[in-house]
């Protein structure tokens, strides 16, 4: 207890006055500066659509640039090869899709004409050739 009193006595020797000062008219102009910051923050919190899309636009521009950098040199050194090949592949895949649909249609038509639709054949065909999503979209279209 006596030791505590010594501490208190020791504190009395210490200065209570604070050694800090502020710039002139700091407190008088504080509200004004605070208002400006609140307004700035309010402006920042509602970004414009163009600002929100900026990263996406940069990414898209990057893809276009890469495409152009690859496409034109290829076209220059191998004229007609790359683009024709791409088109041919696309056409093949499209015709394959049509082929699948035609097959199914023909098969069903034949079976219909024979008046004997075998459910198992249809289910087998659908599960082998179409995804669940495609079956679902066919059913509801």
């Amino acid at each position: 207890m006596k030791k505590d009193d010594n501490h208190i006595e020791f504190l009395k020797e210490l200065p209570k006055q604070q050694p800090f000062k502020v710039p002139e008219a700091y407190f008088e102009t504080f509200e004004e500066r605070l208002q400006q910051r609140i307004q700035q923050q309010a402006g920042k919190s509602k970004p414009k659509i163009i600002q929100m899309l900026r990263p996406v636009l940069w990414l898209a521009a990057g893809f276009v640039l890469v495409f152009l950098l690859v496409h034109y040199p290829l076209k220059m050194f191998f004229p007609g090869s790359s683009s024709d090949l791409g088109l041919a592949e696309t056409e093949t895949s499209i015709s394959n899709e049509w082929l699948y649909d035609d097959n199914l249609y023909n098969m069903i038509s034949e079976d219909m004409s024979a008046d004997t639709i075998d459910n198992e054949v249809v289910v087998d065909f659908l599960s082998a050739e179409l995804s669940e999503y495609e079956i679902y979209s066919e059913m509801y279209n």
Partner: protein
Amino acid sequence: MLQKLIRIAIDNTNMHDDQQIIEGLKSESSRNQAFGLLVSKYKERLYWHIRKIVISHDDADDALQNTFIKVWNSIDGFREESEIYTWLYRIATNEAITLLNQQKKRSMLDAGDTSEHLLQAIHSDTYFDGDEIQTRLQQAIAVLPEKQRLVFNMKYFDEMKYQDMSGILDTSVGALKASYHHAVKKIEEYLKSEE
């Protein structure tokens, strides 16, 4: 006795004002005006509270603005269970400590190096004009652990009641008294070792 009565009367007036401010903040039509009153009433008190934590004026200014911005953004979240005074001091204390931690991260200092940052601020801040004993006292406070530093500043300089401090720092009165006791002891040792 008279002084005590005057203090009680002042406290009651302040509480009455705070109640008016809270009522004003609740309504959208009077919110701006009430917020203006709140800032005007508490800016200096909160500034000095923050300044003692962060030492540098620029940091104190930043933390004070952050405090009021946080208050403005979370007015709806204020629960009247605590006094507005306690709520404001709690936000201000958190903002000051957050700022110190951010600076510590930026300057790649270790976790315990807040003291080093504060000691640097005492020497480099343009708006520090303490004499020799004031500077040494601030240095002694700067090397205290965070909680003891806060408690010492609030008790010694602001003469805040332990009960109020307890609401702000979310610490029991007993623990606060112990922190203050340890802080005083360490400051005494520091100053004696410097002599």
